[in-house]
């Protein structure tokens, strides 16, 4: 019953990219990239902090240039998967994200630790730099939605 899964079939990358107004789940992200061939999974979750520039906020509204964002994420995933022989997922929440919840989620599965850590970190850094997504509005505590 040795099931040798193919490494990142190109047709499957779409389902591992997710720009959504729904809450993001680490367990769901894991299920997108898990495989019996991989022994190490590293996940990065960016979360909304309660202070922005010293002011308490209750959430952030995120906005994306969705079509371009998906294209850029695909390029980053292709580069990282080729370099480290890993399988990646990149997800970003859009619209209103409350303080403490996950806004950005990158998951990397590899055979061993080093490549999973390195590919995850690379993908996080690249996505922050190259993917057209914005914190469009900080929603301040006390004043309600401004």
């Amino acid at each position: 019953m040795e099931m040798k899964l193919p490494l990142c079939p190109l047709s499957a990358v779409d389902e591992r990219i997710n720009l959504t107004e729904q809450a993001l789940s680490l367990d769901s992200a894991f299920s997108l990239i898990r495989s019996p061939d991989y022994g190490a999974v590293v996940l990065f979750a960016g979360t909304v902090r309660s202070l922005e520039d010293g002011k308490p906020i209750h959430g952030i509204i995120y906005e994306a240039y969705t079509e371009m964002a998906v294209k850029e994420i695909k390029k980053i995933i292709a580069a990282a998967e080729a370099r480290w022989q890993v399988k990646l997922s990149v997800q970003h929440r859009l619209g209103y994200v409350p303080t403490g919840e996950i806004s950005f989620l990158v998951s990397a599965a590899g055979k061993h630790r080093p490549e999973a850590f390195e590919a995850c970190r690379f993908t996080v850094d690249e996505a922050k730099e190259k993917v057209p997504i914005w914190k469009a509005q900080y929603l301040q505590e006390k004043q309600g939605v401004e």
Partner: protein
Amino acid sequence: MSAKFLFFAQCADWMGRKDMEISCPNPIKIKELLKKTEILSPLVNKKDFLKVAVNQTMADLEKEVCDGDEVAFMPPFSGG
């Protein structure tokens, strides 16, 4: 020719809109378009700050806009 323009995040605030069609007689460099198109004037003094994409690929202000292009003006990315 005409092109579709998109304005994201603060760019939409400055423009007071999220998108528009702009017509002009010929293909034209983005920097010329910014100079000559009155309605884009809110973006002119933000030029050093702006990011621009043409057809969903990053471009600089020297890039020529052609008929049917999708041109996006964007502030620096801040996702994550």
